[in-house]
């Protein structure tokens, strides 16, 4: 291919210069003929360049060096011109061919690299996709696990009070002879446990509302002192074994919140404290205004919450050591408080090892009359 193209160039160039060969110097046809060698070198490589260089030398001699159409050379000058032409043509052809080969090799390498790169990219994309799918599968699995855990713990939580209720009810039905005091105590147990069931059901309803994203507080002005006092009174049965002390000042700023939801937060925190408080210990409820927020604290003197569990305790189904409750209560508190634009945290009870839950809620803005 290279030889053919170079030879054609040589033939065409010779033919073109044939009519004017007597009017030009020896240098002009030499320069034009070298063009053919260059073409052969670029297209066909070094072998083609050499072949065409010799071909061009022959053509130079035949066509442009007198006597024309013979390989004879009469003048010494022409010998020199021919020799120089051969050397220049060969050197030029080899140089160009080398250059062209290097370029071709570089292009080939580039193409190879590009193929490799495309391949790698395809692989990494595939890997990313696989990783994504794996993550999705993991998330689904976790959701399934959480649902199973929810069902297990909910059925356990519902059955625990039912067990006490059923034991007492079946016993009383069978006509066991109790003195009045024991009888009253047993009936109180039934009432307490029925109320506990009711609180569990309320939490479950809240949980389903949170899951459905339907936990929008119906905001109004809430007086925490009244709410806490009322709730403590209703939960009196929980604090038979412990003492409870309420220090919520009546001049506390009003809170901007949903009464029912905040009531549930207080209920869950009190129930939690009652569960962990050792007999005869003190559960203290206090509140104060701080940094434009209202802080409510529920402190117990129980086993407390280890540091590593402080954040996780608000995740659903996390329960502190020594508890068998489902642990949705604190998760619900967190969801409600955060829906109100507040925060909830747990810290160590001052001067003791127990847990103090701190709920910060936004104040109700008082508009000028």
């Amino acid at each position, binding site marked *: 291919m290279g030889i053919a193209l170079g030879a054609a160039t040589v033939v065409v160039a010779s033919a073109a210069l044939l009519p004017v060969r007597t009017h030009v110097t020896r240098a002009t046809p030499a320069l034009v003929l070298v063009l053919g060698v260059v073409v052969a070198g670029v297209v066909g490589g070094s072998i083609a360049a050499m072949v065409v260089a010799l071909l061009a030398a022959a053509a130079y001699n035949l066509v442009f060096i007198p006597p024309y159409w013979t390989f004879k050379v009469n003048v010494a000058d022409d010998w020199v011109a021919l020799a120089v032409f051969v050397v220049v043509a060969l050197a030029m052809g080899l140089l160009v061919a080398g250059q062209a080969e290097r370029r071709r090799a570089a292009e080939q390498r580039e193409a190879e690299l590009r193929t490799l790169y495309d391949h790698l990219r395809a692989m990494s994309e595939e890997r990313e996709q696989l990783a994504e799918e794996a993550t999705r599968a993991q998330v689904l699995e976790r959701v399934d696990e959480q649902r199973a855990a929810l069902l297990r713990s909910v*059925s*356990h939580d519902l*059955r*625990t*009070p*039912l*067990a*006490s*209720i*059923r*034991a*007492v009810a*079946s*016993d009383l039905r*069978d006509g*066991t*002879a*109790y003195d009045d005091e*024991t009888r009253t*105590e*047993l009936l109180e*147990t039934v009432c*307490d*446990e029925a109320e506990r069931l009711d609180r569990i059901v309320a939490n479950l309803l809240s949980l389903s509302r949170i899951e459905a994203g339907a936990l929008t507080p119906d905001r109004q002005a809430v007086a925490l002192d009244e709410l806490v006092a009322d709730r403590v009174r209703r939960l009196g049965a929980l604090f038979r*074994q412990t003492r409870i002390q309420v220090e919520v000042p009546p001049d506390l700023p009003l809170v901007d919140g949903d009464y029912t939801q905040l009531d549930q937060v207080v209920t869950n925190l009190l129930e939690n404290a009652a569960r962990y408080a050792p007999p005869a210990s003190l559960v203290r409820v206090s509140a104060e205004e701080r940094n434009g927020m209202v802080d409510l604290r529920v402190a117990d003197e129980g086993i407390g919450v280890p540091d590593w569990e402080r954040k996780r305790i608000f995740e659903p189904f996390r329960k502190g*050591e*020594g*508890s*068998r409750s489902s642990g949705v209560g604190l998760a619900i508190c967190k969801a409600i408080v955060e829906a109100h634009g507040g925060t909830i945290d747990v810290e160590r009870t001052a001067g003791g090892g127990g847990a103090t839950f701190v709920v910060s809620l936004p104040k109700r803005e008082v508009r000028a009359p």
Partner: protein
Amino acid sequence: MTRVLVVDDEPALLRAVGAALKARGYDVATVGTGQAAIDAIALTPPDVVVLDLGLPDLDGIEVCRRVREWSDVPIVVLSAEGSEERKVLALDQGADDYVTKPFSTAELLARIRVALRHRKDDAAPEDDAVLRVGDLQVDLARHVVEVGDRKVDLTPKEFAFLALLARWPGRVLTHRAILQDVWGPEYGSESQYLRVYASQLRKKLDDDPAQPRLITEPGVGYRLVDPAAEAGG
């Protein structure tokens, strides 16, 4: 006075069970943790223990296992519904019986009575005994079974199965315990054998299908009804 230790972390349940036991003349002690239960059994050994499996500190099954290392006090476990494998585990680790929560007080009291009777029976020799469970008689020496005055023909395996249950009337025996006693120590998971033998036995004993004397405890094992304990007292 018969002393009962009730172990549960639910104060309400302790109140309910405690009151019911006291009203029937038992001396009742209650604790809320597994460790406290082990301590109480060691310090003032009760006649029977009622043990919840879901305790805050130690698993109830673990409590059973530890107590069995040095005490043969009867243990009746309380367990949540739907945890058959936990019940079986507890029984295999030394519990004597179980009651599923929620339970009726009468049921719990019957189980306690069965457990207490076995404690007394354990002391008595049982070699040449004729076992009597209601109108059922199992003569271990002569390999003869009678219901009322009617003689019942049993194959050797059926006889061994029934004799084992009759030795522990009213008490649940796990599939594994029955298989290993009747078939041999290399058996343990072939509970399908027991289904066949139990149904044969019911036919031959002429059990009332509505109120069989041979009761299946689904997923756990079998129990021969003990009329003496069911009646109360």
